[in-house]
């Protein structure tokens, strides 16, 4: 790598996400086989790869929804894999968007957005509602504040889910295949919000199959296969000029 070693320790900015030698097994099945991966502050990194390559598991390890088997993960310099780490506190700084939205079904859109602000960040109701309204405006869902999740389309649900994560004022956002459960005509509205976030400088790690999004928005694309990072580069290089055979095979299938 060109940076890092040559640069002065003092001026190296702390990475938002720094995954070091990560191994993850489910029983006998080793899903991640020594991953080194980082996302700089303000960077948008898309992780692509065939299903079963371990990309979603990597993302879920980052906020410790999965316990790691070996290795460590630093979040803004803090080791989230440390047994003594205050995981809840670190997680509150990491927004996460799920493939299946996972909106709280018993709560209205507004209550979905304020419950963690109130319970975790201890914001007053007035404050929480203000933040929620601001984020609902941003994702274009302010007219549904009183709706229940069951009455929203997939695209609307995912935009509300993003607003919910954003209402915690996170330092970074993780996206786990955010458009994979959507009907094709609803994908655009979700990608549009993600594009806006990227333009505003949000640090983003996106596991996705949307090559168009990766090409246009990502600062860097990481290709994973069979539990390892095969290749990473800026999107144009990686997508148009893949170096590795496996990358070429994958891209020829999806493009």
């Amino acid at each position, binding site marked *: 790598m060109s940076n890092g070693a040559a640069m002065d320790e003092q001026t190296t900015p702390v990475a938002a996400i720094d995954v070091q030698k990560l191994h993850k097994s489910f029983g006998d099945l080793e899903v991640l086989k020594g991953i080194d991966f980082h996302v700089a502050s303000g960077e948008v990194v898309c992780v692509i790869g065939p299903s079963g390559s371990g990309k979603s598991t990597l993302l879920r390890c980052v*906020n410790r*929804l999965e316990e790691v088997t070996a290795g460590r993960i630093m979040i803004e310099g803090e080791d989230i894999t440390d047994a003594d780490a205050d995981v*809840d*506190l670190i*997680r*509150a700084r*990491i*927004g*996460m968007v*799920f493939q*299946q939205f*996972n*909106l*709280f*079904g*018993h709560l209205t859109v507004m209550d979905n957005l304020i*419950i*963690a602000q109130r*319970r*975790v*960040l201890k914001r007053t109701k007035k404050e929480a509602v203000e933040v929620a309204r601001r984020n609902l405006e941003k994702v274009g869902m302010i007219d549904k504040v009183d709706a229940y999740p*069951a009455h929203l389309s997939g695209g609307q649900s995912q935009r509300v*889910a993003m607003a*919910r*994560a954003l209402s*915690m004022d996170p330092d970074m956002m993780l996206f786990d295949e955010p458009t994979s459960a959507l009907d094709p005509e609803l994908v655009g509205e979700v990608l549009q919000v993600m594009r806006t976030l990227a333009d505003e400088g949000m640090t983003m790690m996106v596991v996705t199959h949307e090559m168009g999004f990766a090409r246009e928005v990502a600062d860097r694309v990481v290709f994973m296969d069979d539990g390892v990072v095969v290749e990473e580069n800026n999107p144009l290089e990686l997508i148009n000029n893949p170096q590795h055979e496996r990358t070429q095979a994958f891209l020829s299938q999806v493009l």
Partner: protein
Amino acid sequence: MVDQPAMSSREAAGLPARRLSPSQRTRLFRGSLYAVLGLFVAGFLVVADFAAIQQNFLNPQIAAQTMPELVTRAMRNTVTYTLIAFAIGLLLGLLLALMKLSPVGPYRWLSNIYIEFFRGLPAILTIFLVGFGVPIAFGFRIPFGTPGAGTLALGLVAAAYMAETIRAGIQAVPKGQVEAARSLGMSQGRAMVSIVLPQAFRIIVPPLTNEVVLLIKDTSLLFIIGFQPVNKELFVYGRDISTDVFNATPLIAAGLAYLAITFPLTRLVAVLERRQSRSR
């Protein structure tokens, strides 16, 4: 047109034709069902001694004697015992359900032992055990006398059943709900209280309502430990007057009072279940 019978499928299959067409056979069968029913009703009307039935089961003078205590005291006691037993069962059942889902092995074992124990025993034995066995063994008097001991026993039994229902409800809440809550920084306990339990209880309202119906009926088992007059519930109240006046009408009155509570509840369960199956 010439009325010509079409070749039946039996003939086509090479089988001999039947004398009756399928629709005639259906009508004949249906008709004989009604005939049997008619015979039974006619037989009952001939044999039944309506004067005796009316005198012994539906005697208006005796029915009037049971009022108003049947409602103001006995029915009220039945409802009170049910609600207290339900509250005990719900709280203890929730605790047992959480223990059963605990990562700590001994908690799971204790919960399993409790559930198997109290589900395997007849409720009446548990009631007798708590009402007589405990005070005799430990010289410990359970507060509120026999109603206190009885409702406690019913609550202990109900907790075993409700624990399984609540556990099923908790497990029916999708895993993604907890993950979303945790990803927002909520602790495990907070996610359970704010996100999982409210949704779990919504799912199990119908089976919990059924549990209330069972409890209402099971309060009648408290007769085994005996009541002061003011504490009598519906069954004991009806039974005692019945044996006093040597007439079954008070029991019928008590039965109608049970139905007045249980019937609306079972209808409510049916409505809730239909609504739930529609929203899935």
